[in-house]
């Protein structure tokens, strides 16, 4: 038997064993062994295994006596067995704990597999070349080879636990009955498979609400993106025209909505357009343009239009500034050549300016579009999704998917259906963004 096989077999049972005994890499072997001790130690320290093997625990159950890993897996599978606030199981904590356990287990598994692979490869090198590499020399080459991973490991861990873990939690919630009828710790949550998805498409009030909200979400995303984009472009082109004298004055005023914090602008507009006391409505009455109060934010259709217009007010300056920057970079020679050829200003705009601006802003436009699907602020702070529509399941006329999800989770505690919606919304956004990133150069050159 060659050293490679021997080392590998040893490492399968005793982490780092192959490296330590066969390949003469004492320190490396010891470190790997310590990781194995740590792995077993965590399980033993947090559980009651030793007591169990000494016969001190008569009725052993994973629920009460399992360690970090076994109890975590048990929790993830069962989501708790005993309800009640006192001594009962808390299903969501068990779910979160279970996911964390699986992630930590995966980390250990990765080290374990690497440990076996490394034992095999180091042994093979000794078999074929007869050279023993000391841990010190080994570390030197590894440091260069694995430098990116070594530096990034804390950041990867942060992302794993703060971004990935919660996403897994949200996705798994869609397959449970976690809602106001099953609220831990008083009640237990259970796995229900695809029931929630079936409910969304089979129960009329859910499917009708979902389709209406989805339709408005799409309209909102398209309108808000394109209205701000073209308004921004129009202002940029006008500011660039030779007829304008006080460019910087106009510009510094128009830049204001971009600089003022969004939430403040939205709350100001909410009050400005208040149907009962709002100054704008009163002004219109005083001017004699209308004889009754205008329900800017409480009439279904009018509220939708208002939201898009307010969003236009807030959003166009960013595109204006951006497109202005692009316009100033366009080669003046292009315009002169076109003028010599007798092209009118409209033609110059269509054939030169527009394509160049589109090319430069395309990816950002799509990103903005994807972002508007998640454009929670504009809806929530202006109308809170209202006016309430009695035909909808807990949604208002101006609710988009994300604000509906917010209501379902925070106001109505229907987490399971909200999770289903999260998944669908995410798929929509992900497809658009993936397509966008794929076709931009930024990712072609990586």
């Amino acid at each position, binding site marked *: 038997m060659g050293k490679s096989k021997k080392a590998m077999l040893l490492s399968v049972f005793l982490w780092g064993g192959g490296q330590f005994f066969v390949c003469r890499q004492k320190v490396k072997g010891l470190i790997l062994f310590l990781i194995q001790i740590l792995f077993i130690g965590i399980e033993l320290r947090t559980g009651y295994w030793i007591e169990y093997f000494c016969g001190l625990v008569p009725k052993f159950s994973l629920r009460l006596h399992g360690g970090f890993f076994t109890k975590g897996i048990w929790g993830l599978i069962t989501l708790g067995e005993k309800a009640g606030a006192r001594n009962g199981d808390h299903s*969501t*904590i068990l779910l979160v*704990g279970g996911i964390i356990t699986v992630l930590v287990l995966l980390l250990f598994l990765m080290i374990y597999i690497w440990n076996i692979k490394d034992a095999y490869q180091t042994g093979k090198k000794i078999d074929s070349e007869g050279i023993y590499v000391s841990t010190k020399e080994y570390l030197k080459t590894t440091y260069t080879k694995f*430098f*990116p991973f070594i530096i990034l490991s804390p*950041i990867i861990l*942060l*992302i794993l636990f*703060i*971004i990935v873990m*919660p996403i897994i*939690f*949200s996705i798994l*919630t869609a397959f449970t009955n976690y809602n106001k009828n099953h609220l831990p710790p008083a009640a237990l949550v259970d796995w229900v498979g695809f029931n929630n998805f079936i409910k969304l498409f089979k129960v009329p009030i859910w499917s009708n609400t979902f389709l209406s909200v989805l339709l408005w979400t799409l309209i909102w995303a398209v309108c808000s993106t394109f209205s701000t984009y073209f308004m921004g472009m129009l*202002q940029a082109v*006008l500011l660039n*025209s030779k*007829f*304008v004298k006080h460019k910087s004055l*106009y510009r510094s*005023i*128009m*830049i*204001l909505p971009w*600089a*003022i*914090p969004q*939430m*403040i*602008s939205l*709350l*100001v507009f*909410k*009050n*400005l357009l*208040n149907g009962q*006391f709002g*100054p704008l409505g009163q002004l219109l009455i005083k001017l004699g343009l209308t004889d009754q109060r205008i329900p800017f934010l409480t009439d279904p259709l009018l509220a939708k239009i208002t939201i898009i217009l307010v969003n236009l*007010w807030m959003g166009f300056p960013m595109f204006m*500034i*951006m497109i202005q*920057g692009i316009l100033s970079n366009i080669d003046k020679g292009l315009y002169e050549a076109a003028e010599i050829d007798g092209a009118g200003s409209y033609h110059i705009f269509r054939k030169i300016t527009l394509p160049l601006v589109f090319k*430069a802003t395309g*990816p*950002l436009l799509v*990103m903005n579009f994807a972002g508007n699907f*998640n454009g929670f602020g504009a809806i929530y*702070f202006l109308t809170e999704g209202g006016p309430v529509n009695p035909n909808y399941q807990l949604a208002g006329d101006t609710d988009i998917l994300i604000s509906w*999800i*917010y209501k379902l989770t925070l106001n109505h505690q229907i*987490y399971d259906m909200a999770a289903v919606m*999260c998944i669908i*919304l995410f798929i929509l*956004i992900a497809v658009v963004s*993936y397509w966008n*990133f794929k076709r931009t*150069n*930024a*990712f072609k050159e*990586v």
Partner: protein
Amino acid sequence: MKRKIKAFLVNLELIIVCIIVIIPVIWIVMSSFNKGKGLMSSTLLPKHVTLENYFNLFKNTDYLIWFKNSLSIALLNAFVSVILIMVTAWVVSRFNFKGRKAGLMTMLILSMFPSFLSMTAIYTLFMTFGLNKSVLSLVLVYSAGAIPYNVWLVKGYLDGIPMSLDEAAYIDGSSKLNTFFKIIIPMSTPIIVFCAVSQFMTPWMDYILPNLLYTGESTRTIAVGLYTMIAGNETANFTEFASGTVLIAVPITILYLLFQKYLVEGIAAGANKG
């Protein structure tokens, strides 16, 4: 003649847009100096100018505590985020390793997952580690959330710094980290300013996260405080709310305008890759 009409129309449009832009701004500023409490009494041109609302704001609410909370979160967030973003972007830009492209793309797309439900999980996580009452909890979430997009932006910027500079440093015997601090960091000041300013800005007006993760009277941030002030009874406390708003919006707006150049460059950096 035609030229004159054109010039007139162009200027007219710009003036109208400017007026539409500025009226809500003037209105809220004027409201904050208005006598009387309610929305009814806040007119564009106040009849009685007074500073009463500002005094009331400090007397009736914990505005200073809110401000202090927000400021400490914002400062810490800018600091932590910039370090994480710069290191990650540098590694992704300068080293070739397996899963680089796929990893970056996955991160970018994952960061678009709707976050409300995720907050339950994060809350549980922080509770287990006893972090749920600490500033750090918010900062960790903000900075982890900022990594994907900003790394993508900064990576594009760093790709523009010639590799020959790094190589020269390596030949002179400089270590990797030393090269990062001595060469890469000084050459990327504009994009660092962009990241720092935009990360400093985020927490000021974020209502959702602190409301979910950072509960309690003494830990309120400005956004949460202001929102609770008018939530429910928006018409009654309006002028006081207006003064609170103006007080925070003015410095942020000025900061934004001061760093305009960097912020625009940062946005454009995303566009330039198209």
